[in-house]
């Protein structure tokens, strides 16, 4: 039986086993790494990418982790993630509460990037969207309590555009005002100066990555008043004439003075209200 098999079969078997082992090992490793890579896709909430960084998904394919942006940042804001950080290994990020972005006019970090993972089309730093400031803890924010802290507002590089103060009635004292800091996403670059400056032990205003900070309307949803302005007229059919079933000689004006008695109309009430209440009781007296 054994003798009938050709001599080559042992070597061939060994070759096939080796091949299968290698392929199996590599497949196992690649599978594990693939799962790990998927996990690493989720950027932790307190790690903010440098200005001009592409969408996180594309950033992880385009950033080659060379650290040139880190080197050319004059304020040592950026660092490269190490294995113990939750950010994808080797990619640049900053923590706003420690060192915020100083928003250099010439954006040296973007210029340093050799691959364009920091998009070179970003030439105006005010157009950067590193994240969005969110006044996340209204219960501890001093301004929400009616105090006049508003340090976040004062340090904002786009003061009165990215953060405004909105005056409201203070229901606690019932006689003062509160000045609520309000962030506007069309001007906030996510530089993090407000989070850095917040006077609390832990900042009440925080920079969040866009994907956490922003909600999104349903695709079909439209703001009626904006559509009305765009179209220059109301887009719904105008109100129908109201129809009321009223006695002769009366009509009702919806937007005007209400019930109107016309000449000769029958009044529902007597001049003396008691007469009306006692109507039908005359016989019982």
């Amino acid at each position, binding site marked *: 039986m054994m003798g009938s098999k050709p001599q080559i079969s042992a070597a061939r078997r060994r070759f096939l086993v080796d091949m299968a082992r290698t392929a199996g090992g590599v497949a196992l490793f690649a599978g594990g790494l693939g799962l790990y890579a998927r996990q690493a896709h989720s950027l932790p909430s307190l790690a903010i990418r440098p200005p001009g960084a592409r969408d996180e998904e594309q950033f992880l394919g385009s950033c080659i982790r060379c650290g040139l942006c880190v080197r050319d940042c004059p304020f040592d804001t950026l*660092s490269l993630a190490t294995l113990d950080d939750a950010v994808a290994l080797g990619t640049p990020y900053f923590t706003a509460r420690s060192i915020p972005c100083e928003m250099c006019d010439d954006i040296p970090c973007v210029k340093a990037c050799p691959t364009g993972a920091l998009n070179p089309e970003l030439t105006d730093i005010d157009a950067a969207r590193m994240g969005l400031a969110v006044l996340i803890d209204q219960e501890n924010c001093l301004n929400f309590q009616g105090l006049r802290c508003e340090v976040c507002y004062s340090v904002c590089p786009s003061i009165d555009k990215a953060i405004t103060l909105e005056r409201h009635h203070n229901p606690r004292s019932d006689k003062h005002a509160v000045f609520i800091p309000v962030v506007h996403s069309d001007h906030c670059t996510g530089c993090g100066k407000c989070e850095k400056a917040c006077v609390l032990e832990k900042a009440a205003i925080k920079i969040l990555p866009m994907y956490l900070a922003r909600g999104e309307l349903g695709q079909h949803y439209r703001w009626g008043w904006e559509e009305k302005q765009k179209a220059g007229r109301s887009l719904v059919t105008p109100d129908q004439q109201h129809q009321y079933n009223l006695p002769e000689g009366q009509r009702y004006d919806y937007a005007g003075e209400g019930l109107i008695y016309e000449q000769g109309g029958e009044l529902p009430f007597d001049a003396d209200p008691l007469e009306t209440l006692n109507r039908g009781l005359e016989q019982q007296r």
Partner: protein
Amino acid sequence: MTGLQQPGIAATTERGWFARHKWLLARRFSQFAILGLFLLGPWLGIWMVKGNLTSSRTLDVLPLTDPFIFLQSLATGYLPELTAIIGALLVVAFYLLVGGRVFCAWVCPVNIVTDTAHWSRRRLGINAASRLSPNARYWLLGAVLLLALITGSLAWELVNPVSVLHRGLIFGMGFGWLIILAIFLFDLLVSRRGWCGHLCPMGAFYSALGTHSLVRVRADRREHCNDCMDCYAVCPEPQVIRLALKGEQQGKGPVISSAHCTNCGRCIDVCSKEVFTFGSRFHNRPDASRQHQHSSGMEVPQ
């Protein structure tokens, strides 16, 4: 201690310690000098070279980009900007000329780790060896590119020991030491030359890059070989030597033409008969070794 535990002992007695370690010293100098250039900035504030091996800028003009990570980035479907393209082309041109795996032997910092593991292995007499295929690296290379394609991210760079070590030394290591320690222990206890010689997909990429490179180690004086096996003992890719050294009868020339050769020159160092030398890939006829000696006026022993 046997000869194979301390290869090159014959060469030392015949040629002196320095000659026996010439290329090894040159290689260590190159590895540490390159690392040093990157560290001058963060350590001393002299910014000649910025970045790390994946991409760097020298004297604010010269961009260099690792073509392997460039290729991975392409695989994710992203075309990098011109700076990275130029940098990658420059590096490719260099290694096409001098041999792809010159990166492994002369630049890569992990080489120092795995060489140390190999040296310790020899000294401690550890012989345990798992049966790893030297071609596993090509499977891994394929897997790395496939992963980039599927995940759309540079998945390999989440664990790549080469960039973990080099970037770590320059920008901060964190727990990156664990990966390097794992590589060291793997090479020491599990597999001889396991990482660089069998698994590293980066090495596989550079092998492929240097398949037709100009600079080669040649066994020009192969008829002097006394079968001491020292070169096999030190070679990080021992399978590349045999054809060039012993292939004359099979009509093979003296050039070590395998893409796996790292041009480390260690065989040149340890050979007491000075069989090996650096040269070009040309003049690779089976009798080229004898002709070479005639032309260079060397004595041909009978």
